């Protein structure tokens, strides 16, 4: 026991540094604060302007982030929450923990799709089917072709009950097929290799060569081109349009550093923050960056149409849509 206490004492000691500057606590998801993520660089550039300490608190993913807030309630330590996606904002608002951010979002490609006074967008990417050039020749060019294509060329999907891309694809199908979504899922299920709990498992299986297609983002090939110097993986453009994922941040009502938090949100849409999004978070920035995006980004597909359902519609129908999906795919 004494040993355990000693260990705990050491751990407790190492995680509580003393500082006199005000501390801004930002809750975000895991990969944002990784060494290779945008977190460390953003911390540095924000701290250079604010005379404060920016403290990231990383929680697994967007969904876990919202649940953490629900668990903590009004006693949360967060000043800002960064990393929810648009499908979660209705629930996030219902907690009553957020207030209007009081900043004006910059105009961007997605301004027409998302303008909210509480939750400010900081990056976005359309979902897309990524295919492996070494494993297939003619990728589907529409959702219809994907649904009706040959059963021996499989796709890996994520579970809409446990992952945000999974939910995104579910809504995509619903938006394109409407009442016939159940039928379409039934057809598609022959092409589904497996449905994983999250994006990581699906993408891991895909790059291990288990299937020629996976659901990911339009921006995914940029990672492979820039970091791995390969164009083996590409996104395929669907004629029906692509469903959008927009990542947003919000201000906590009970924050004791509200002014600082607002300053951070303003900073969030400026180039000091946006510069780190494309090649560290592998998403599109909503604001201007100091330098133009790397050339590789111009090789990415550019969807003709961006799809996004109203957050209220999604919140109201999510359970029914998931039930429909379950019924159609678990036959």
């Amino acid at each position, binding site marked *: *026991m004494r*040993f*355990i206490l000693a*260990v*705990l004492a*050491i*751990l*407790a000691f*190492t*995680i*509580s540094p003393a500082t006199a500057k005000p501390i801004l606590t930002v809750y975000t998801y*895991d*990969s944002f*604060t*990784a060494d*290779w*993520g945008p977190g460390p660089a953003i911390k540095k550039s924000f701290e250079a302007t604010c005379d404060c300490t920016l403290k*990231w*608190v*990383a929680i*697994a*993913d967007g*969904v*876990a982030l919202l*649940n953490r807030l*629900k*668990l*903590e309630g009004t*006693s949360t*330590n967060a000043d800002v929450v960064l990393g929810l996606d648009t499908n979660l904002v209705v629930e996030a608002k219902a907690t009553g923990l957020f207030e209007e951010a009081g900043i004006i979002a910059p105009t961007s490609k997605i301004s027409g799709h998302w303008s909210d006074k509480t939750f400010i967008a900081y990056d976005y990417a359309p979902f897309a089917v990524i295919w492996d050039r070494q494993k297939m020749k003619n990728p589907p060019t529409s959702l219809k072709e994907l649904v009706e294509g040959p059963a*021996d060329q499989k796709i890996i999907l994520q*579970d809409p*009950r*446990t992952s945000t891309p999974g939910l995104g694809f579910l809504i995509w199908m619903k938006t394109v097929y409407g009442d016939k979504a159940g039928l379409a899922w039934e057809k598609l299920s022959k092409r589904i290799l*497996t*449905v*994983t*709990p*999250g*994006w*990581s*498992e699906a*993408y*891991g*299986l895909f*790059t*291990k*060569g*288990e*299937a020629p297609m996976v659901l990911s983002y339009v921006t*995914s090939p940029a*990672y*492979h081109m820039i*970091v791995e110097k390969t164009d083996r993986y590409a996104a395929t453009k669907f004629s029906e349009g692509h469903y959008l994922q927009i990542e947003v941040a919000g201000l906590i009502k009970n924050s004791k550093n509200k002014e600082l938090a607002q300053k951070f949100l303003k900073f969030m849409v400026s180039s000091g923050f946006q510069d780190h999004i494309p090649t560290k978070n*592998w998403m599109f920035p909503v604001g201007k960056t100091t330098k133009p995006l790397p050339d590789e980004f111009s090789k990415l597909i550019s969807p003709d149409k961006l799809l996004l359902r109203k957050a209220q519609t999604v919140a109201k129908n999510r359970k029914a849509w998931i039930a429909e*999906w*379950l019924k159609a*795919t*678990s*036959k």
Partner: protein
Amino acid sequence: MPYQRAETPTRIAGFSALLFITIVTFGAFLALATRATEGFAISEVLSDAYLGRIIRFTLWQATLSTLLSVGLAIPTARAFARQTKFTGRDSLLKLFALPLALPALVGVLAILGLWGRAGWINQLTGDLLSFSIFGLSGILIAHIFFNLPLATRLFLTSLERIPVENWRLASQLDMPSSSIFKFIEWPVIKAVLPGILALVFMLCLTSFTIVLTLGGGPASTTLEVAIYQSLRFDFDPGRAVTLALVQLAITVVLLAVSFRFTKTLPNIVSLKSTMHRPDAHTISARIVDAGFIIAAGCFVALPLAALIADGLSSDLPKLLSSPTVWRAITTSFVLALAAGTLSLTLCWTMLKAINNQNSLFAKLVGFASSTILVMPAIVLGSGWFIVLHRFGNVFSFAPLLVIIINALMALPFVHRILAPALAESTRQHNRLIAGLGITGWSRWRLIDFPVLKKPLALAFAFAMALSLGDLGVIALFGSEQITTLPLLLFKSLGSYRTHDADGLALILAFSCLIILYAAEKLSQRKARQC
């Protein structure tokens, strides 16, 4: 029987340990239940037709997986028990403890390295079979990969404790192999079989990543998935608690049945158990044993080899020169060491307080250290989060919570290794101890430790390896300050860094091997002369 009654302080300590476990588990349930949303109705959850389907599939896959894993483990363990001298035996057995310590996702990727579309089997056959393991077959293969080696090691520990007198007798009577199995081995196997069956069944019952990833679609869903979903995605604590209680109820029924059939080992006094089996060297025995050892060995070792191959092709020098990786390694070891110590202490304290193997207390201890396995980490974690965050920043409690929950999660394994060994040693030495009046520290130093150091070391190594590979608990409480190897691995996988993840998996596997190796070395050191 000459039972020596445990002294009062020992009894109190044992009861306290049991109470602690009960409070940790049910406290979490209660805390979560208080957060049930308004208008929540248990009846609504239970009357859902979908739940019935989940339960059926959960039980079906768990039953099949258990029967296959344990059924194959018996002849495999017997083969290892008979063939004690072949080259690589020790290494192979150490390798057998490895799957247990791997996070499920790493195991799944390893299995796909062998069986997958791009795996070795399909590559060797030139994609002729275009063999796909997704579906029930994938779930079964993965469950056998994780549980066959575990069950084999547990059976083997029991078989190796068969007293040398039995083998002498068998030699004198010139017993054929079949009689040896019937009269010597089967009673030992039978005694531990219900416990091992229950353990493996519970592990398969609560399987999550394997079932979802390899299951091939939402038709393969377990109760654990539903619990996770209701807490992680829907944040419906009422539903999560109800489902967790359903899972617990299934387990309780199962354990009650398994306890009904658990027998205590025959009371035999042994001096030492270096055995010389009369049936080890017949040709037929050698062929059969070689068959099982090679088959099981390949089944376990080849996916691990795929994991190593992938790991070696990653940028290991870069990983090993990263301070983040080293911090993760250190954190992992510190947490695992603390969790292992706590787990062993709790189990030992409870076991020492048992006077009579048939007492209610003994049954409760067995029960508590088994059911903990089906308490979803997410339920325990979220429940304690609700309790603790009233007392300040939860992140300062995080290491403590991770250690405690990991220690509890390791209890079923520790208990299964220690309980039979301690019971047997008590039977053997009680007369002597009572006669000489040895108690307390002297008893630990002179009797318990020297006699039990092998199972103690094994239990400790298992507990450590388990918490080293934990992802379920740390995923709830990890932060930049407390990042373990599995968490870092998952983070890498979550940001396209598959190759880094491969390298980290190799480092993780290697760390587990070091622990197992160290435990073995320590337990082989000669006891102090007395």
